[in-house]
C-alpha cells in the first residue's frame, strides 16, 4: 500500500476495495511429491516427475530444500533447514525457481545467513530489493575488460610487490594462524578512505564453517574501524548444515554481482574455501555421488572455478553490457558498465603443503597467490608474506604510476636479499658491498612489517618505498625502522607532497622533500 500514516477510518473500506478489485483468485494446480526418506540433511522425494535440477522445493511447514539429484523414480534434495522438522510422508511443493537471495542497499552493515536472512538481531532488512540468483553463469569474454584499476589493500608488502586490481582473483594461502584473515580484514578496513571520498568498494565477507565467536569478533572489529557501513557479512558457521556452508560463497558472489552489474566496485572475501570443499564433499557423499581423490566429488574443481569466474571487471560500453549473458530479470533496466567484483579466496594448507589437491586446484584458477609462511610469522615478520613465491598475474597494471616507479624493483631486490642472506650465514667476514646490501635488505624487510588494522594510504606507501629505493635509512639502526616510519608519516601528513603522491604523481621536488624529511628524522633518531 502506498498511502501515508494519516488514513482516516472512513477511507479504509475505499482503499481496500480499490486494492482488491483487480485481483483474481482461483484454484492453484501444482505438482507435489511425498517424502520417502529423510536423514542427515538429505531428503528423498517420490513424485515430482517434472522437477528440475537445482529447483527449490517447499514443505508444508515452510522448510526449503534444493534438488541435487534427479533419479528415475525419485529426486534427492538437500534441506536448507533442520532435518527434524521433516517426516516421511510429508508433502513437498515445487516452487519452479532456483535459489535466490534478496539483495538490497540496506544489507550493508548487516550480518546475514546464506539465504539473506538477518541473524544480527537488528530486525528485517527493509527497502527495495532485487532477487539475485545464487547460481549464475559468469560474464562472457565479450563483456569483460582487462583489470586496470588498483584495489589498495593498505599493506605495503602487497601493494608494492603483489598488487591486486579491481576484478582480479588473488588467493591468500597459508597454514593455520598465519594471518590470512588479517590480510582480508585489513583490506576491507582500507576501503574506508575510498568510501569517504566518493570511490566506494563495497565489501562482502563470507565466513564459512567458522566459530561464531570468531565471526562476532570480526564484526566488532569492522564496526570499531568504521568498515561495517560498507560491508555485508554472510555467515554459515560451524554449527550450520553442510548445505548452508556450501551455498554461502555463492550467496556472497550474488551480492557482489548486484554491485558489479550496477556499475560499482565490490570486493568479496571467501574465508575459507577449504571448508566449503569439505562441506560439498559431505553433501556429495550423502547424495551417494561417486567420490574421487581424497573422497572429494569429481566436480570439486568446477565448484571453485564457477564461483571464482564470477569475479570480473566489466566493460564500460553501456550498449553492450545490457546484453550480458544470464542477466537476471530483476536487474534488467538497472545494468551499468564499468563495475567490478574482486575476489580474495582463502585456502588453508596443512604443514605448508601447497601441492595438495584443493590448494593446487584453486591456485590454477586464480590470478595469483599470496603465500603466508609460518616461520616468517614466528620471526615477527607480519604480514608473513613469502614474497619469493607470491605472485600477482595482473602486476603493474594494477598500480598507480608513482607506485609503479618506486616499487618496480622491490620484488627482485627482496628475492636477491633472501638468497644473499642464506649464503651469508656460512661466511665469516663480508665485503662492504655485501654488508651494505644485507643491511638494506634487512631494513626493507622491517619496512614491510605492519601492525594489524593499521593500513597505510597509497601516498604514505609510496613515500616509504621511496626511502627504501634511495637507501634513506642507511644511517639508522634496524631497531629504529618502526620509529623512522612513524616519524616520516607524521611529518608528511597534510603536506602537498603526500597529496600529490596520493594522486599517483611523483616529481623531483616531491623526491627532494621526502629526502629532506628523511634526513631530519635520521638526525633525530641518531641523538
Amino acid at each position, binding site marked *: 500500500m502506498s498511502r501515508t500514516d494519516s488514513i482516516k477510518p472512513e477511507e479504509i473500506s475505499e482503499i481496500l476495495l480499490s*486494492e482488491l478489485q483487480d485481483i483474481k*483468485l482461483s*484454484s*492453484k*494446480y501444482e*505438482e507435489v511429491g*511425498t517424502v520417502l526418506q529423510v536423514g542427515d540433511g538429505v531428503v528423498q522425494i*517420490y*513424485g515430482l516427475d517434472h522437477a528440475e535440477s537445482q529447483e527449490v522445493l517447499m514443505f508444508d511447514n515452510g522448510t526449503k530444500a534444493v534438488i541435487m539429484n534427479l533419479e528415475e*523414480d525419485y529426486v534427492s534434495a538437500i534441506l536448507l533447514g533442520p532435518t527434524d522438522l521433516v517426516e516421511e510422508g510429508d508433502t513437498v511443493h515445487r516452487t519452479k525457481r532456483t535459489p535466490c537471495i534478496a539483495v538490497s542497499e540496506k544489507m550493508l552493515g548487516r550480518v546475514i545467513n546464506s539465504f539473506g536472512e538477518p541473524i544480527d538481531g537488528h530486525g528485517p532488512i527493509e527497502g527495495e530489493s532485487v532477487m539475485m540468483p545464487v547460481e549464475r553463469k559468469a560474464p562472457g569474454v565479450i563483456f569483460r575488460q582487462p583489470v586496470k584499476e588498483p584495489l589498495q589493500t593498505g599493506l605495503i608488502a602487497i601493494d608494492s610487490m603483489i598488487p591486486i586490481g579491481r576484478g582480479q582473483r588473488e588467493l591468500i594461502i597459508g597454514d593455520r594462524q598465519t594471518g590470512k584473515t588479517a590480510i582480508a580484514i585489513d583490506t576491507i578496513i582500507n576501503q574506508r578512505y575510498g568510501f569517504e571520498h566518493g570511490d566506494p568498494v563495497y565489501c562482502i565477507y563470507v565466513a564459512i564453517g567458522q566459530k561464531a565467536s570468531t565471526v562476532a569478533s570480526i564484526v566488532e572489529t569492522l564496526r570499531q574501524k568504521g568498515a561495517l557501513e560498507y560491508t555485508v557479512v554472510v555467515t554459515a558457521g560451524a554449527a550450520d548444515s553442510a548445505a548452508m556452508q556450501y551455498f554461502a560463497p555463492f550467496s556472497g558472489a550474488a551480492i557482489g554481482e548486484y554491485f558489479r552489474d550496477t556499475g560499482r566496485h565490490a570486493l568479496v572475501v571467501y574465508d575459507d574455501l577449504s571448508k566449503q570443499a569439505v562441506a560439498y564433499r559431505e553433501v556429495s557423499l550423502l547424495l551417494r555421488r561417486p567420490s574421487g581423490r581424497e573422497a572429494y566429488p569429481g566436480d570439486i574443481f568446477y565448484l571453485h572455478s564457477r564461483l571464482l569466474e564470477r569475479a570480473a571487471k566489466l566493460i564500460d560500453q553501456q550498449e553492450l553490457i545490457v546484453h550480458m549473458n544470464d542477466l537476471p530479470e530483476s536487474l534488467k533496466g538497472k545494468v551499468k558498465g564499468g563495475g567490478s567484483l574482486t575476489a580474495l579466496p582463502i585456502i588453508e594448507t596443512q604443514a605448508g603443503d601447497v601441492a595438495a589437491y584443493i590448494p593446487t586446484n584453486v591456485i590454477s584458477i586464480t590470478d595469483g597467490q599470496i603465500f603466508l609462511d609460518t616461520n616468517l610469522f614466528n620471526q615477527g615478520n607480519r604480514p608473513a608474506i613469502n614474497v619469493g613465491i607470491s605472485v600477482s598475474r595482473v602486476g603493474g597494471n594494477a598500480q598507480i604510476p608513482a607506485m609503479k616507479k618506486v616499487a618496480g624493483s622491490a620484488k627482485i631486490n627482496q628475492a636477491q636479499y633472501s638468497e644473499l642472506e642464506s649464503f651469508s650465514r656460512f661466511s665469516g667476514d663480508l665485503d662492504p658491498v655485501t654488508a651494505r646490501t644485507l643491511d638494506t635488505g634487512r631494513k626493507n624487510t622491517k619496512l614491510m612489517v605492519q601492525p594489524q588494522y593499521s593500513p597505510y594510504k597509497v601516498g604514505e606507501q609510496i613515500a616509504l618505498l621511496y626511502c627504501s629505493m634511495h637507501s634513506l635509512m642507511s644511517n639508522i639502526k634496524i631497531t629504529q625502522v618502526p620509529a623512522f616510519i612513524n616519524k616520516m608519516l607524521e611529518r608528511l601528513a597534510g603536506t602537498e607532497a603526500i597529496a600529490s603522491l596520493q594522486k599517483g604523481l611523483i616529481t623531483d621536488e616531491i623526491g627532494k622533500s621526502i629526502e629532506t624529511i628523511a634526513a631530519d628524522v635520521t638526525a633525530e633518531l641518531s641523538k
Partner: protein
Amino acid sequence: MVIRRKREKYISFILYSYVEQYKKRNNIIDVIITTAHPIEEATAYRIAEFSSPETTGKKVQLTQLVNPAIIGGYTLRINNILIDASLSRQIDDLKQIL
C-alpha cells in the same frame, strides 16, 4: 530377489513404484480431499469428479481429511497433483499481492 541382489535400501522405492503400477493397471486413482469441516462422502465424491478430469472413468479411492487450518474451501490431491482451492492459500496470495 531384492536381498539376493543387495538392493535392500531401495525397498521403500520399490514398494511405492509397485503400488503405482498396480493402481495404473487396475484403473484406480487415489484422491485425498481435505476440508476445514467434515463433509458428506457423496459431496466429497462430487467435488473430486468435478475438480479434475483425471477421475473420469476411474475407480476413485477417496480419503477424507479435516484440517481447520485451511479455514474454508478444500484441497484435492490426486496422485502427485494438488488442487488447492482453500481459503488459507487465497489469503496468503492476497498477502503477497498487497
